């Protein structure tokens, strides 16, 4: 029953090893944060496992639930590809390799940060990661307003509220989500 509905939108069947490789790679290489942007790139842009709107809908839900939204969206992607086993594989692959690395990293930390070079390298990488996150934001914004115009207003409102005014994320997401559902229900996508 579950596997049937999970297989509905994506006829393709993804081998478990591909899910593990993808999430392990993201977990180990996502320097500078913006991990959900990495997962979007891999799952939507590169492989087309999920459609843009489905991924972003799940990401919004993951934001208002407890827990890291990166982990919540990984659980969703894993589930849609391979059911419960897929969820467990995605989360374990995303978390375990960087956990091992971070502890090893912390063991040598004091020798490490004395070097200004390391600090500047990480700072520059984090700057580029910001650029990558922004590019995913702009890309999804462009996709959202291709069919209809109202999402532009919603995107701008959420950006200003959380990014500029620094209002708390969860109440903003809940209010904007309710408005989005209302508007979406009253408009036709392909009108």
């Amino acid at each position, binding site marked *: 029953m579950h596997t049937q509905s999970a297989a*509905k939108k994506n006829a393709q069947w993804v081998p478990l090893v591909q899910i593990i490789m993808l999430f392990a790679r993201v977990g*180990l290489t*996502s*320097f500078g*944060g913006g*991990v959900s942007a990495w997962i979007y*790139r891999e799952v939507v842009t590169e492989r087309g496992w999920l459609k843009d709107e489905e991924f*972003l*809908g799940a990401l*919004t*839900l*993951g*934001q208002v*639930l*407890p*827990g*890291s939204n990166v*982990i*919540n969206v990984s659980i*969703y992607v894993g*589930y*849609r590809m391979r059911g419960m086993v897929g969820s467990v594989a995605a989360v374990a692959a*995303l*978390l375990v390799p*960087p*956990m091992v*690395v*971070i502890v090893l990293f912390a063991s040598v930390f004091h020798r490490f940060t004395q070097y*200004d*070079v390391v600090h500047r390298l*990480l700072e*520059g*990488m*984090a*700057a*580029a990661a*910001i*650029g*990558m*996150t*922004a*590019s995913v*934001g*702009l890309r*999804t914004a462009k996709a*959202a307003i291709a069919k209809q115009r109202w*999402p532009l207003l919603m*995107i701008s*409102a*959420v*950006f200003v509220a*959380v*990014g500029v005014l620094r209002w708390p994320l969860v109440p903003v*997401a809940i209010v*904007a*989500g309710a408005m989005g*559902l209302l*508007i*979406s*229900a009253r408009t036709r996508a392909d009108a």
Partner: protein
Amino acid sequence: MPDNLYLQLVAVFAPLSLLSIGGGQSIVADINQQAVAIHGWVSQQEFVDLFAISRAAPGPGALLTTLIGWKVAGWLGALVASVALFVPSSLLAYVAAVAWSRHNRHPWHAVAERGLAPIATGLILASSFSVLRAASSTWIIWGLALVALGVFIARPKMNPLIVLFGAGLVNVAAGRIF
């Protein structure tokens, strides 16, 4: 409070798991309070160092918890603290994923996705903007972020690691020159 260190880790991190609404950042202050003032697992300076490592290393920022568990009780402590933080919220997210996908044939499911997608886009843009504002905002950091943005828009499928390391090296070089 239980005497066993592992039980203490579970008692601290499992409730925080379900309180971390809106992401791992919302509980950093609580973790700080519990680890430093209440349990004395690490000093404030150690906490700041561990937080900095969890930011610098790849992977989700929530790995701060792994590091505190490791400081308290070695590799097993790292495992216990991580499981306590990640499992409760993940079970909830799993139930939500099952419930959300169960009805995905219904027309309202597509309507709901279309209604919720712009929120995620707004939050992605907001997060990149607030991280940039919080970073040491020198012109080189803003410049690197903008150049990377241009590269990723022009070449969406390019390997991000190349751009990231390139930006890191430019920042190192800039540190030598200025």
